[in-house]
């Protein structure tokens, strides 16, 4: 009996599995592979998808955010200016520097999302920008586009350079002993937001968010180094101190200087890109 049962069960499975030969459970849901319908779609295809392998998603799909996050779609009129912004302030600087184009094309995330507003979490908190394991970078607040507005511009640049920096440590690891430069300063994912900018600097970090863990520290430091015009003045150069608090800030600056040195060497070694040169290319546009 046992042998019979063992024999007949695989037969039954075979019979049952052949019941629905025509139907495929792996049906893409909400698949928005962009059909080229408009001039805008054609422009995106020519300038981004074909050239860099980047799909630019400007039409809202709810999978772009989690179920508790609420955000609007971009205005159609904002999409082209945002594309120009991305090209000018993110892509072109890489094209200008040695090995930059090669690095960019090899590492650019395949999916870029435009969202119209900020992402609201319903508890008064907002998400400014997100990335997903190197697979996607999300720009928020696209409807407020104004590259002459420093606050808006810096927020977008912080997002894109931060998220793009993650791809480097994900593929090539952090610089050697990076996490030992300011080991006492890390706070954790749930408590970084209690710090002020000043307190983060005293700990040797460019922002409170950088204290959440070494990966975020790496990405934030790269990002601030690239887009923040007064990076050296604010985060590196020493103050003439007469107070203890000032000396503490200078100690923080020492640590940030060490981090920058470590990061630029690491970039040069694993990507061939000179971050100083890239910073200059970006700063020339601001």
């Amino acid at each position, binding site marked *: 009996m046992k042998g019979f049962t063992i024999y007949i069960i695989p037969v*039954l499975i075979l019979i049952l599995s052949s019941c629905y030969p025509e139907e495929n459970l792996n049906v893409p849901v909400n698949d928005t592979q962009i059909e080229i319908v408009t001039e805008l779609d054609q422009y995106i295809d020519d300038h981004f998808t074909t050239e860099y392998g980047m799909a630019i998603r400007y039409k809202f799909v709810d999978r772009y955010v989690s179920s508790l996050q609420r955000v609007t779609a971009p205005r159609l009129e904002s999409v082209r200016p945002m594309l120009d912004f991305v090209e000018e302030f993110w892509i072109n600087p890489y094209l200008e520097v040695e090995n930059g184009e090669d690095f960019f094309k090899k590492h650019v995330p395949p999916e870029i999302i435009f969202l119209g507003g900020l992402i609201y979490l319903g508890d008064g908190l907002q998400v400014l920008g997100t990335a997903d394991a190197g697979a996607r970078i999300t720009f928020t607040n696209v*409807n407020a586009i104004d590259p002459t507005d420093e606050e808006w511009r810096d927020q977008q640049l912080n997002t894109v350079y931060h998220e793009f920096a993650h791809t480097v440590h994900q593929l090539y690891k952090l610089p050697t002993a990076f996490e030992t430069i300011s080991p006492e300063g890390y706070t954790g994912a749930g408590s970084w937001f209690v710090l002020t900018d000043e307190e983060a600097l005293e700990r040797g970090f460019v922002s409170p968010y950088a204290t959440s863990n070494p990966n975020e520290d790496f990405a934030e430091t790269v990002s601030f180094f690239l887009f923040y015009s007064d990076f050296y003045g604010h985060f590196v150069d020493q103050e003439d101190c007469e107070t203890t608090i000032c000396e503490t800030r200078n100690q923080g600056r020492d640590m940030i200087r060490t981090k920058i040195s470590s990061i630029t060497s690491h970039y040069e070694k694993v990507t061939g890109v000179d971050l100083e040169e890239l910073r200059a290319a970006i700063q020339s546009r601001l």
Partner: protein
Amino acid sequence: MKKGFLYWCLLLPLILSSCGDDDGPELPPVEERKEEAVQGLIDDLIAPANGWRVNYSPTSGAGTFLMLLDFNENGEVLIKSDVAVNDGEFREHVSTYRVDVGLSLELIFDTYNVFHYFFELNETQFGGEFEFLFDKRQGENLIFISKSDLGSPTTLTLEPADGTEESSFGLEIVGYFDAFQGKSPRIFGLKAPSQHVILEDQNISVFWQIDLIARSLLVDMAGEGTTASELLSNNNLISVFHESTYNFVGNRLTLENPFEIDIAGKSIRLESIDFQNFDSLAGPSMCNLSSDPTPVYSGTSELGNIRVEKSLFSSEGLPYQPQTDRLYAVNSFFIFDDSLRSLQEEGIISVSFPTAQAFVMNYGFQSDSLPENSVGLIYENEFGDSEWILQYMEPTQTEINRIRITLRNEFYTLGDVDATDIANMSQVNAEIFEGGEVYIYDWPNNFDLKIFWIYNPCNEYELLILP
């Protein structure tokens, strides 16, 4: 063994028969059926020659907004609406749409349009929606249900337009009502303006607060008389608290929950007003120091002639009463100028009293030392001690929520206060209470605190005060 074999033999035909297609032998594959359903809805959406008419109410507490939607086969939708915000952005605009199939057919406006505007209000807590689940066809209409509403789902009914709807857009009336928003408190978001609705032929006045964003209003008070001074001298204003949503069609405002009241021996029922004449300069000034005009909008209703004026009166300020056992006070940060900058950070307080801690407003306070009616500051001196300067004022007069402030040249001081400090205090009070009349409101908040919100129409300064 034989018994088991028999069981399996009996079972096998049953299993095999269950492989039959319950949906019929000729049904196409699921993907094909999905595409067919999607295309079917798209075909329906693009079918009407004049597009669709929608009377959209984003939430149960909001009024009705008229929209015309014209879908095309390229995934674009032309939307016209009577939503006048953002310099008329939503009067006529194009966005894109998509029909998806998930748990059911969905209509998604996937680039920004007027639906997104409602969705994004109040940091997305207002209750608007831009993703809708297809519910059913009902006659010629298409019925959708909001997909992710925080509250009760909203129904979106698409009715075939007949081509005459554009004349129903109340664009002019919407613009004229927006003109009443000026000279209103705004530090915590625009406060719904108050309007004095004068039923001229009835000799009756109604005060309502009209929310121009949500199209809802609250009838606050009513009384016999047609002018503010008449109403105040008659002292017969009664609280009403009648809520209604409303809509604009052409030049008509319609209360979706008509207002009814028995007052001065009359039964009053107000359902709609047909407006005819708008004059942006014919209304009374809100400030007794100036003649800054305000709008007047006149029309007719079933009750005869009606005149709508701007007002700052509201029953919200009625709980502001004398406090014998404690003073009214607030952190001195919460006093703002007409540019909404804190006076402690950039204005006169930052210059004269940079170490100010609290603003005090005594109203009927019974104390052995402090003046019963007075206003002033508590600040820190160079040694870290608190010093007080309070300027006496005449006993406060309140008329509904209007407070008359008459400052005296007499001061209470505590600490090492000199003549310069007193002169500075006098200047601070004179600036904050310029004109001598302010209006007080309740500020709803999430802190479980009673907080009053004071507005000075002469200089548009605002401050908070806590009992």
